[in-house]
């Protein structure tokens, strides 16, 4: 299902307008990254996707349903949200039970819940620690527990809020692989990130936010090349695009991945 935002404006009770007249459609199966400076409204925006926040004006529709008409828990079956801080949700004595909590809330039959939990643990690289207490794990591992907990709910749409923060190289690669996998299975993945390389390598569409407004919205190659617009919101193009910009690249497509870059560069030579 699609998520449609129409003239979304959100003003916090303190008077700060975090989002100003935002409109776009997130289509089923898309991989979308939302980038922008700290305080641009990225997290505020994605919290509207599952009803955690409701618009001050404008509408957000999940499929046919206005998010005002459903509770967050009801929309949880459609939209999985991985929070930045995993400690806000961990309460079970083992990782496995934590991951099984979502399926339990969705009232799945036992067989399905068990299978989904196992698959999620595997995808997040947590099978080895499934019986450990989440608080015995390092913070970066706890983050993956939170991720697995949402994966297990097998929602068609997944929102990741800064998924790579605190992860090491291997952790980022694993999460990237996971995103690719979800997209390959037709799920919609939306991420807020300021890791532009991670963004370029896994997300086909990029939305750039600045001061509560959408500055750019389009295919990754086109959007991430616009260094001057990105700079307005404290963002820089990914490493390889910056490199290509200083090499005689001609009109070859700009590189999103290392393989892209080398193939084009060798091809041009």
């Amino acid at each position, binding site marked *: 299902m699609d998520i449609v935002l129409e003239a979304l404006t959100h003003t916090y009770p*303190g008077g700060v307008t975090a989002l100003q007249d935002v409109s776009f459609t997130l289509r089923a199966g898309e991989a979308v990254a939302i980038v922008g400076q700290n305080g641009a409204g990225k997290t505020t925006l994605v919290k509207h996707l599952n009803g955690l926040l409701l618009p001050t004006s404008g509408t957000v529709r999940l499929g046919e349903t206005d998010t005002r008409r459903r509770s967050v828990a009801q929309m949880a079956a459609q939209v999985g949200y991985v929070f930045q801080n995993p400690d806000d949700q961990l309460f079970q004595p083992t990782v496995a039970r934590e991951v099984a909590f979502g399926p339990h809330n969705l009232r799945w039959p036992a067989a399905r819940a068990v299978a989904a939990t196992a698959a999620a643990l595997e995808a997040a690289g947590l099978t080895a620690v499934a019986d450990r207490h989440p608080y015995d794990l390092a913070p970066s591992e706890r983050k993956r527990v939170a991720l697995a907990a949402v994966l297990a709910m097998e929602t068609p749409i997944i929102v990741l809020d800064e998924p790579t*923060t605190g992860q090491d*190289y291997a952790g980022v690669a694993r999460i990237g692989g996971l995103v690719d996998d979800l997209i390959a299975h037709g799920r919609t993945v939306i991420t807020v990130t300021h890791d532009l390389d991670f963004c370029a390598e896994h997300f086909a569409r990029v939305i750039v936010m600045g001061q509560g407004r959408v500055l750019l919205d389009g295919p990754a190659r086109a959007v991430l090349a616009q260094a001057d617009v990105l700079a307005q919101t404290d963002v820089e193009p990914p490493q390889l695009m910056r*490199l290509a910009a200083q*090499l005689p690249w001609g009109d070859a497509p700009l590189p999103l991945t290392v393989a892209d870059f080398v193939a084009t*560069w*060798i091809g041009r030579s």
Partner: protein
Amino acid sequence: MLTLDHVTYRYPNTERPALRDLSLTIPAGQFCAVVGANGAGKSTLAYTLAGFVPHFYHGTLTGAVTVAGLNTASVTLADLVRRVGLVFQNPYNQISGTKFTVREEVAFGLENLGVPRAEMLERIAATMQLTGIAALAERSPLTLSGGQMQRVALASVLAMQPQVLVLDEPASQLDPIGTREVLAAVQALAASRRITVVLIEHKLEWVAAFADRVLVLADGALVADGPPAEVLASDVLLTHAAGQTRYTQAARLARAQGGWPANQPLPVTLPQAVAAFQAARP
């Protein structure tokens, strides 16, 4: 100057040492980066330099750690925190929780040190300027974003005028240009005031751009030590799953596919990559 002499450390009730027989010397004013996979001991090293190991975390520490002329085990934590400023990875854990504005928050450490009020005001103004948060002075710390909070934490620590500054993954919270500004400010400070900087970071492009020296930790031990151009291009990082910058990865792949002269060193920064790829064109 910082010295570790055969330092081994175990957290309480653990078998595996978090730091294994580490020996190194970091001269004053050096901008030193520490990289490695999660669990390699980077944060533990940061805590050890700041004296939280062993004073806060207890456990078993063998070997000698000398910071700014003091042996960390034989002085109190209070003596050390003045000399070593530590900016944590999660800025929300760094705020005092008792201050209503950013300005007051930055003042907290100075109040504890008994700095006279007039001097406090000067130092606060200077560090807020340096870290780009002067405009946030009257805001409540709790309404700030992660990146803004990280800058407040840095300003608070810098106001205490430490001789050593340890930064634990600043890029994880800051947006790209924010990271660049903060690291540039820290680098300038290191040069002008001879502050030793220890940067713990996963994003190697920042290490490549700012560090004078890179230490690679794996499993608590030091496995590489040298200038960024050398260490970040080497295989050691790959062996210990510490990653590479995209520039290095691209050059490596090009080399594997025959599009790179065998003798040309692998670049680690953007300028190096531009020069290297241009030179490598047939």
